[in-house]
């Protein structure tokens, strides 16, 4: 197993390198950051000064070379906008996004699996059809639209939850976390729900499809023939078999939830890194965008690795083949 992990980490480095080159090149092509950073009143001299101060007066390849050199020592450059190390800017915003993604994932799993189970076990009932219709609603409505609707209903009309922003935070292992207190959680509920909606639909559908397939298999019948209570047949025999394929999806989706936070954070004024990166793209703050992508890609690969490990933990069949390979 350690060899396997090491090999994956080595591949990760390669991936990160490719990522950085692509994004660097891409953003270089989009436009000149100086144009967007300087005050409109600035004259040509001030523009030249800005370009020089940010190292933008050098050829693109040289700029990338400088970036690479720094990257090897863990320095991903300074944000044009904030004038601070890009990595620091990102890491500062990361807990906010992670807690939102975590909460959203929790919601979509906590609701999606039971609902999907139900819809799969009683596929022809009224409730199941309602659940499935609802799930279609969940991924056909654009996130931004639903987001505003949630704000209008729960904050403006009903006044139950705060409309925007992040609540008070408490420190946990050196990170600022807001969802540990009820007050903080109140702020996180709407954005997390907004973010969860799409995944919730996906999980419901996947779970249902899995349930429908698995419940026809003989092991399910045998479990009942053994006289096991229904609770155990579904809760252990069925669920464990469903969870295995779901784990892969969940791993994938966690990454995409983090990325999709971009939209939700914009609407709910959630100070996470998604909102930061949108601003950074529009301001051509290249160091931040590159650092963000490196961080998320790294995180994603890490999640993937964890999923693979978890997978082999859950599925005895994989454990063996992994040992062989």
């Amino acid at each position, binding site marked *: 197993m350690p060899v396997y992990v090491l090999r994956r980490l080595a591949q990760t480095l390669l991936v990160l390198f490719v990522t950085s080159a692509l994004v660097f090149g891409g953003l270089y092509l989009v436009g000149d950051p100086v144009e967007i950073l300087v005050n409109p009143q600035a004259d040509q001299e001030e523009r030249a000064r800005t370009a020089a101060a940010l190292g933008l007066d050098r050829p693109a390849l040289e700029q990338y070379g400088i970036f690479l050199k720094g990257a090897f020592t863990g320095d991903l450059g300074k944000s044009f906008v904030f004038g601070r190390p890009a990595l620091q800017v990102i890491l500062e915003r990361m807990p906010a996004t992670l807690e939102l993604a975590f909460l959203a994932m929790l919601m979509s799993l906590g609701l999606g699996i039971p609902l999907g189970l139900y819809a799969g076990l009683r596929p022809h009932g009224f409730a199941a059809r309602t659940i499935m219709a609802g799930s279609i609603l969940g991924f*056909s409505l*654009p996130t931004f639209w639903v987001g505003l609707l949630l704000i209008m209903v729960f904050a403006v009309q009903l006044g139950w939850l705060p409309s925007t922003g992040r609540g008070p935070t408490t420190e946990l292992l050196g990170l600022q976390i807001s969802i540990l207190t009820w007050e903080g959680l109140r702020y996180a509920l709407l954005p997390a729900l907004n973010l969860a909606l799409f995944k919730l639909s996906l999980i419901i559908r996947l779970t249902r499809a899995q349930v429908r397939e698995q419940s026809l298999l003989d092991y399910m019948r045998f479990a009942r023939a053994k006289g096991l209570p229904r609770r155990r047949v579904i809760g252990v025999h069925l669920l464990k078999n469903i969870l295995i394929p779901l784990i892969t999806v969940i791993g994938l989706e966690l990454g995409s939830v983090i990325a999709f936070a971009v939209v939700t954070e914009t609407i709910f004024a959630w100070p996470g890194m998604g909102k930061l990166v*949108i601003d950074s793209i529009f301001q051509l703050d290249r160091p931040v965008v590159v650092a963000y992508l490196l961080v998320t890609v790294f995180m994603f690969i890490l999640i*993937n690795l964890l999923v693979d490990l978890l997978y082999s933990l859950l599925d005895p069949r994989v454990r063996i083949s992994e040992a062989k390979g």
Partner: protein
Amino acid sequence: MSAVLPATVPAPQTPFRRFLEEFFDSKLATLGFALLAAIVLVALFAPFIAPHNPYDLAKLDLMDSRLAPGEQGLGGASYVLGTDGQGRDMLSAILYGLRVSLYVGVVSGIIALTLGALTGVLAAYAGGRVEQFVMRVVDIQLGFPAILVALILLAVLGRGVDKIIIALVCVQWAYYARTARSAALVERGKEYIEAARGLGLSGTRIVLRHLLPNALPPLIVVGTVQVAHAIALEATLSFLGLGLPSTEPSLGLLIANGYEYLMSGRYWISFYPGLALLATILAINLVGDQLRDVLNPRLAK
């Protein structure tokens, strides 16, 4: 379980007719199909059905902007679903928008599915280094958050239907590849593939006749979700100011344009396009669900 219907039953009709019969067995699926057919027809013939041409700038009148549904404009024209901020007839815009959205969603979906399914199945078939390499590329692609790839790509490419299709294919193919590979992987391990290899069947034949069909049901599930996702993603990109040119709006873009009017009570500017989007995605999913059930040999009764 030994089947209730004996497998040796004489086929009373061609497989295709059987497929049709099974497909239309469900009322819901029939409804979905009818809805989808209607939507596709409406989209195809939008220029003949639509009361106005929403793309013709010379025909738009700013003075008719933001009319409520049913209100009459200055020129005497009446607008069943109202007008948007530019004085564009919403009904016509929705009809034309359907066209754009379907085109973008379906074309990008088909290209991505073909590309993804082929790479995924080939990876599963080839195994070893090829598989490792392909799956690593897929991981890289999936590691890039879809919306960000699209954002940067579109920032570089600019706006346009072709550009958004490129962006959507780029962010979607990996999902299909991954799904196809894992489905094919399960099949690859099965005895009949060993047998097929043993029989000396060619690689292409095994891939095309055995691996691909078995990978199809999960691909269709992913596909129906992804087409819907593509249409919604396109709307989101438009919301963020990228995507399609605003003078030729898709449904998503119409919703995005109407977004700012939501708070002000001018609901129709984004509500009706939203309804159309919902109907489209609903229809696609109803059809997709039934397709999956009918095509899935394990679910067949």
